[in-house]
């Protein structure tokens, strides 16, 4: 079943001439979140296996992704499953996707939380800009990133509002298979969040 989905996704846009490409990624990350108060930082870390996929057909984009969050602290945050679904369009120089992030946490009340999610990119040759709101599976409130394409991959470095950094690297290792490393850290008021996510990618690095 997985291979069928993979084949369909990868076959969706054989021309691969657009800003966004089709791919599947699977990885695992560690997410730290906390809020700071006088004399203390109250927070914890969670393990975060992720799976995401994007299909591009005639410029039309469908993205999906999911991760589970399991606290690494006994008695910490409750288990949750987060799913992302976005649709949009990708030209050769620009792309926009928008949708929703839906988190289900059976132990929480309310158990379902929905956030909007938007991502817009524009390319100027090898370089480009990306603006995201609740991007990266809803974990980054807002970011503006500079993208750089190189023959064997893509690198991004961004500012997370109001204070933070986001960096990602997609590197093609062998034909059709690559490695993606994503990291961010930001502070919003007295809230802090940081992620390190390592994924394998199949099908593309854009």
């Amino acid at each position, binding site marked *: 079943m997985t291979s069928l989905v993979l084949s369909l996704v990868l076959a969706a846009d054989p021309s691969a001439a657009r800003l966004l490409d089709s791919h599947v990624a699977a990885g695992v990350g560690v*997410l730290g*979140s*906390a*809020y700071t*108060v*006088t*004399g*203390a930082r*109250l*927070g914890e870390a*969670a393990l*975060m296996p992720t799976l995401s996929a994007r299909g591009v057909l005639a410029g039309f984009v469908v993205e999906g992704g999911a991760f589970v*969050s399991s*606290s690494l602290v*006994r*008695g*910490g*945050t*409750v288990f*949750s499953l*987060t799913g992302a679904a976005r649709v949009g369009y990708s030209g050769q120089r620009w792309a926009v996707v928008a949708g929703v992030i839906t*988190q289900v*946490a059976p*132990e*929480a*009340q*309310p158990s379902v*939380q929905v*956030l909007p999610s938007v991502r817009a990119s524009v390319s100027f040759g090898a370089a480009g800009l990306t603006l995201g709101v609740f991007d990266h599976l*809803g*974990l980054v*409130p807002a970011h503006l990133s500079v993208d750089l394409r190189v023959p064997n991959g893509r690198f991004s470095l961004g500012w997370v509002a109001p204070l933070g950094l986001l960096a990602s690297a997609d590197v093609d290792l062998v034909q059709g298979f690559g490695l993606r490393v994503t990291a961010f850290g930001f502070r*919003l*008021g*007295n*809230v802090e*969040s940081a992620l390190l996510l390592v994924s394998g990618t199949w099908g593309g690095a854009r």
Partner: protein
Amino acid sequence: MKRVVLLALAVTACQPRAGLDDVSADPGLLGSALPRGFLWGTATAAHQIEGGLDNDWSVFEAGSFPDGTPHIRNRDRATVATDSWNRFDDDLAAMKALGSTTYRFSVEWSRLEPRKGEWNDAAMQRYRDWCVKLRANGITPMVTLQHFTLPRWVADAGGFEGEAIRGDLERFTRRVAGNLKDQVDWWVTLNEPNVYAVQGWLRGVFPPGKKDDTVTQTKVIAMMLKTHARMAQALREVDDVDADGDGFATRIAVAHHVRYFQPATTSPLDVAIAALTDDYSNEAIPRALKTGRVLLDVPGAITIDEVVPGLAGSIDVLGLNYYTRDLVRTDLGSPSFSTLTYRKGRATSDLGWDLYPDGLHSFLVRFAAYGWPLVVTENGLADRSGTLRTPFLVQHVHALERALRDGADVRGYAHWSLMDNFEWAEGYDAQFGLFTIEPGTLRRVPTASVEPFRAIGANIPR
């Protein structure tokens, strides 16, 4: 040796449950790491134990919500409560059985000043007699001046929604301090301003029973802090007698209710709302007491940013009332932006509260950063079966000892409560007492936790 064995048995007999985590220290030595002179005892409040009172709660207890549900579970009333007004000697005997060295109790404004300017001198004398008896038995009185209740004439004038209460409570403070100053050094001006405001104006389960009014709720907290500043100033001026000879005529505190707000999930929204809730509920009051600046914010509803004369430096000790931890889940449709729940699968009190001893450690270490000495002015649980109280006690004292090792200056611990009593909206169902009350006779009956409590106290260096 007997004490060690009893404590060890009490702890090992209890089934380990998530939330009452394993203690690595020898429980038989618990208390020995507390500092010399550490205050060890229990806490009560007048309306919950005295009986025979006529105040805003007496009115509220008789009422119902619009859907017909009574304000108080089972339509209970505090008419008699534990009849402590007439049974103080029984209460004192219970304290002695516990090996107490402190007793936190409140003097009832409605009893002492039933009508504006009319004072009940006989009642004042009885409170004074209590203090004399406590001290004669080696028990340091810690007197709370306002613990949730108001005289009817104060409530009718708007209570903490109005301005007059500042002057009225200052006069009351001067009167009480003038009568008790040679017996009392430890004063708690107000009990849990945040709980008082949330229960009365957000949840509507305390008088005046208003719901979802975060604007007035926030104004009430600010007014309570302004009133506290006047009360503290009055205490400094009137109480010039060092009753216990420790070099201080007054040790002024606010009993601040703290809850450990844990984001329900890793969602950035949940973390942000937990931070917002923590700032409003846990941080804003100590920050105001330290800086003199009241800064309270409910986004989209109200922001108060006001410097209050006399507020900075008004306390000598921060009192912490700690019970539980909440999971905070974003709920933007709620006036508080959140829904608070408890983790499933953990040990909970009869009220469903998560028993989380690490939270006490966290708050003691956290608020030590402000530089005040700390006193745990309340800590306890509703436990009708009595099976959780001893492990709860042991683990929270253990957390307290860890906080001391981590640098917190903790001077005392008052368990809530000496005996089962009228637990506000929960009526008599919620049993927090180290002693239960025998129906009919109102006799104080020791629970299985009395001996462990006494044994821990006996380990405190003298």
